[in-house]
């Protein structure tokens, strides 16, 4: 099924057409998430050392960092599960943890379990009730969630019989109930096989299509590179870089060239473009300024060279990530 059907806002019980999203309504123009110098200390240990970031509405935002960087602590602060030691966090225009705003948030925790004695369908019905959705909408909402995460054939089975991957799918289904404006996914694909990962990416892209904001906490860089509009890299409790992937990766990292008709070290007079090194028949030029590749090619031709091949090589997010983490 398509998540487009989820775009119709679910009506909370007794809340009229406004629903329970007072916080969200109040801050319709506000960012989905905005933190300023958000800090968290645990008895002498600093989990978050002043996180400042803004997540815009409607984007898929990657929250990247190595293990122990403070990602899950940040997520728990955003959801009000822990109290900040300092700083400020606003979610959908309301202070983090605001009860009514939670109606608009779907959350898939990193480590979680549902009661093993409930069936998948019962878990979803339970969360419909906890969300305060109108009773008549429960069967449709549950059916759609089961279809979306591919659990419809196992809907009546006890959660206790589910594999970790199936529990992860169910957790995702629970997070999607109630057409949330913000979905926070904490390592959503950690227990999934390739098919499951593909399904999660599909769900995330469907959410973006219907205008929801997705906050994706992950250490899987390939995943972030595939689906995120912007990312923040966090290390030791602090954001070390934020931007679109293009901004973060900084354009072309190096160019591989195959040139004939010139001396063996033809690049001697072109070091202003970058650093050159020979690699068999190829020459690798590194540190080329953004947009300077055509100028480099023109300079080689002006010297009488024949440019037989130009292969721009982009940095991977992993390379950039490691650079950022290595920075002092």
């Amino acid at each position, binding site marked *: 099924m398509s998540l487009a059907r989820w775009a119709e806002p679910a009506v909370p019980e007794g809340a009229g057409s406004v629903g329970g999203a007072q916080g969200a309504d109040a801050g319709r123009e506000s960012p989905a998430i905005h933190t300023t110098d958000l800090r968290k200390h645990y008895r002498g240990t600093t989990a978050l050392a002043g996180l400042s970031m803004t997540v815009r509405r409607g984007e898929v935002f990657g929250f990247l960092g190595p293990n122990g960087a403070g990602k899950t602590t940040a997520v728990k602060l955003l959801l009000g*599960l822990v109290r900040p030691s300092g700083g400020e966090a606003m979610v959908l225009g309301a202070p983090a943890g605001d009860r009514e705003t939670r109606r608009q948030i779907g959350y898939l925790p990193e480590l979680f379990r549902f009661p093993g004695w409930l069936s998948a369908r019962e878990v979803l019905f339970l*969360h419909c009730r906890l969300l305060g959705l109108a009773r008549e909408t429960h069967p449709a909402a549950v059916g759609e969630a089961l279809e979306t995460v591919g659990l419809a054939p196992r809907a009546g089975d006890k959660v206790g019989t589910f594999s970790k991957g199936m529990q992860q799918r169910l957790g995702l289904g629970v997070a999607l109930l109630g057409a949330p404006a913000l979905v926070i996914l904490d390592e959503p694909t950690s227990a999934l096989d390739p098919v499951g990962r593909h399904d999660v990416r599909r769900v995330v892209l469907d959410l973006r299509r219907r205008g929801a904001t997705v906050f994706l906490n992950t250490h899987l860089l390939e995943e972030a590179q595939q689906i995120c509009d912007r990312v923040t890299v966090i290390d030791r409790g602090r954001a070390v870089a934020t931007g679109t992937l293009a901004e973060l990766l900084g354009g072309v990292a190096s160019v591989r060239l195959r040139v004939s008709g010139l001396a063996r070290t033809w690049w001697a007079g072109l070091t202003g473009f970058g650093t050159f090194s020979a690699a068999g028949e190829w020459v690798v030029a590194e540190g080329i300024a953004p947009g300077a590749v055509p100028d480099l090619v023109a300079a080689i031709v002006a010297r009488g060279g024949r440019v037989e091949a130009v292969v721009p090589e982009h940095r991977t997010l992993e390379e950039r990530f490691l650079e950022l983490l290595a920075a002092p």
Partner: protein
Amino acid sequence: MSPTLVIARLTVREAVRRRLVAAFGVITVLLAALSAWGFDRLSHARNVTSGEVHVAIPQSLIVFMFMFSFVVALSASAMASPSVSTEIESGILLAVLTRPVRRSEVLLGKWLGLAGVLLAYSVVVSALEVGIVDLVSGFVPPDPVGAALYLFGEGAILLSVTVLLSTRLSAIATGVVAVALFGAAWLAGVVGSLGTLFKIGTLRSVGEVARFLLPTDGLWHGAIYALEPRSFVAQRLSQSSAAAGNPFFATAPLAWPYLVFVGAWFVLVMAAALYSFERREL
């Protein structure tokens, strides 16, 4: 449906699904059958006078109910000790508490569900025992409803303490502490009875203080009085003041001020549990 009732219903359903109710049923039927056999033997014993039977039947009923009060109290502890801590550790509560519900609603819902199971058990087991005794011997205690409610009260008190502990301690630590507290309170009651028997003020004070610190033994004495024939109480007291030293004998009903205190104690413990859970970082 309010979140409190949603959680309460879930808790009751868990008790049924995880065969807690079935276990209660099997144990109760077995113990009730055993007591029926015992009461029948006692009622028809050849070498016992009818006067002795009239004394022995209520005393035996009290001892049997004492056993059931243990079952109620220990069940309260066993059911409630994993109710918060284990669900935090396993991540079950993470998904629930990020919904638009108050933590107090979740905690009260759990308490309400478990208390409902205990109340049902207390009423059923009291009705069963009183019915058996009536059938076998014709004796009906003066206040069986009161006895059932005091039995439930004992369980509810221990349930509240266990819920409070569970907001901070692991399930196993909570269970051990709660059971130890219950045992200590009962033992302090026995020590107090001995103090009364031997007229030792210090020991009597231990029992009195314990009744206020953890009112389970105090409520148990309310249940005893509700099960004793009034004539039996008057007779024992007229015979000897030492009767008051019997831990399975109550000389008077629970005073209203004490019941008011128990109510206040309960409110205080639940308020502490709610505050503790509200402040708990997940």
